[in-house]
């Protein structure tokens, strides 16, 4: 079911939502960094930027998630669960971000092991996504089967700016329908013409994305490329920081560690980790199957476009292009996989 909502009413909707839930939306700070931050008023929403500097991933899959608190004392050990997640709205993310939740969600429910922390959080999160009008030079979402500037996978509500200041609002999931139903005063029913306007919007937006990769071809080339000499030189500029993986909407690797406050209290924490980190695979005792920076670099691309496809039938990438922009040495993920041999 499709509705219309004006920009004015979007702000009113935000004002209402802020009273009830934690609302995260792109916010600009003094250093011009646009990040998903908790809104205290609808005017803080910064809708001008296409992409935030980091993804909304960290609102559901926290960079450091406290699993539980541990108390050790004479009578034994007690394990106390962390706080329950609160009702959350992620507003104004882009289709590529939203699709990231879908991809990570599958992983966290994989192989009979259900990750309680992710599942609980995503269940309490409503994602309101806004279609992209103008891509950046780094965008390549249309290379993916599901990727598109108006893609709805992962979103609960998708807003599309079909004519100046008027947004077509589509409810994708039950959560989305509930959100629109609860706030029906801000929405009007959309006409056939409005829905057709979105088709035009889609065609135009997709046309603007210059780069389109043949990912089936990439996969075919990657499969035998493990020993390729290509990796010997392509990794040279890489400085092996984790910027690319930490700004990625789909990178999910993590580490589980303990933070001890004193001899009694500690917390078990899960934090993001990255295959670019040397410690990622270093075993106690010093043996490390991926000592070489080349191997770590290769792992990132192999995992995203080859191994993950084997297991999940989709790439571990949504084409947001953040890694290209965040990379201190401007390594272009598109170029790396395209030129593979």
């Amino acid at each position: 079911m499709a509705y219309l909502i004006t920009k004015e009413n979007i702000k009113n909707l935000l004002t209402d939502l802020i009273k009830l839930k934690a609302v995260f939306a792109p916010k600009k700070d003094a250093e011009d960094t646009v990040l998903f931050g908790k809104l205290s008023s609808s005017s803080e929403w910064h809708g001008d930027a296409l992409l935030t500097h980091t993804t909304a991933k960290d609102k559901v899959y926290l960079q450091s998630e406290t699993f539980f608190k541990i108390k050790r004392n004479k009578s034994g050990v007690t394990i106390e669960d962390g706080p329950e997640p609160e009702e959350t709205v992620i507003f104004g993310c882009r289709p590529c971000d939203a699709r990231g939740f879908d991809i990570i969600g599958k992983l966290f429910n994989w192989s009979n092991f259900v990750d309680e922390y992710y599942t609980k959080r995503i269940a309490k999160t409503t994602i309101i996504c806004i279609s992209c009008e103008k891509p950046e030079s780094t965008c390549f979402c249309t290379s993916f089967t599901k990727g598109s500037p108006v893609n709805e996978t992962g979103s609960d509500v998708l807003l599309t700016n079909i004519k100046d200041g008027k947004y077509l609002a589509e409810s994708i999931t039950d959560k989305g329908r509930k959100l629109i139903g609860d706030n029906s005063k801000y929405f009007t029913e959309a006409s056939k013409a409005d829905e057709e306007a979105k088709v035009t919007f889609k065609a135009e937006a997709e046309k603007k994305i210059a780069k389109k990769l043949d990912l089936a071809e990439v996969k075919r080339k990657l499969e035998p490329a493990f020993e390729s000499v290509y990796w010997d030189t392509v990794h040279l500029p890489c400085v092996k920081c984790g910027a690319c993986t930490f700004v990625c909407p789909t990178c999910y690797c993590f580490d589980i560690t303990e933070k001890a406050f004193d001899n009694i209290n500690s917390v078990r924490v899960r934090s993001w980790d990255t295959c670019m980190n040397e410690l990622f695979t270093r075993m106690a005792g010093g043996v490390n199957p991926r000592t070489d920076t080349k191997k770590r670099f290769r792992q990132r691309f192999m995992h995203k476009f080859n191994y993950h496809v084997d297991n999940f039938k989709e790439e571990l990438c949504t084409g947001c292009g953040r890694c290209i922009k965040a990379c201190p040495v401007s390594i272009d993920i598109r170029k790396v996989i395209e030129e593979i041999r």
Partner: protein
Amino acid sequence: MAENIYKPHLAKVVEVKVETVDIKSYKFELLDPGVRKTFSWKAGQFLILDIFGVGETIFTFANPQTRNEFIECSIRKVGQVTEAIHELEAGAIVGIRGPYGNWFPFDKWQGKNLLYIAGGVGLAALRSPIEFALDTFKDFKKKTILYGARSPLDICYKDRFSDWEKVPDTEIILTADKGAEGWKHKVGFVPTVLKEVHLSPADSVAIICGPPIMIKFVLKELLDLGFTPEQIVTTLEMRMKCGLGKCGRCNVKNIYICKDGPVFTYAQLKELPDEY
């Protein structure tokens, strides 16, 4: 909602036994009697041991399902967590979650000869399949254990050997890289000794665990002896954190060692890129 997969069961250290200079064996008992009843594993699987205040690490079960009064682990001191474990005394509370991973396919090996080849603390990972085969000895033919360590002092499970040897059709071959006074067994590296004793591959399975360099040469030796890749089984060591196929670090090709392993045949390993 189902049980939280990251939450450990509490367990008590029942017994600590010093095996060598840097290896200690532990017996743990789960505190909750209900969990104790349902907690079961198969030889080859591993668990995650949780030292509260320090962190988690992965260990294989040292005892098989046929001797499941306690949960046993043998642990070498190598890092932050294992150092903390070595400080533990009987009565200490730890956490255990698991079991994870696959196991040795003993049901497929009925009626075969079993050849165990272990180096160093690798014997800890093979103790459970060894003892399982000894407890169900009638199902198998000859059981040969070839075990090497750096020096006679580094041999662990010394006091178990006499019991093992009592089981019919069981032979233990010990070797040390460097001998010492009073050492009555072989001297030399495991692959060299393997060549000397010359075992027949007919109707046999070789089960290996040890440092990578040993595995590499033992593999070569076994293939020379005529073992097929399907007849060689090893258990891989890899840095793991979650044990659930999620954290990503034990990913090799589309395999997650913790979920799809750690027990692999050499035929399977050959298909994987050299990154483990």
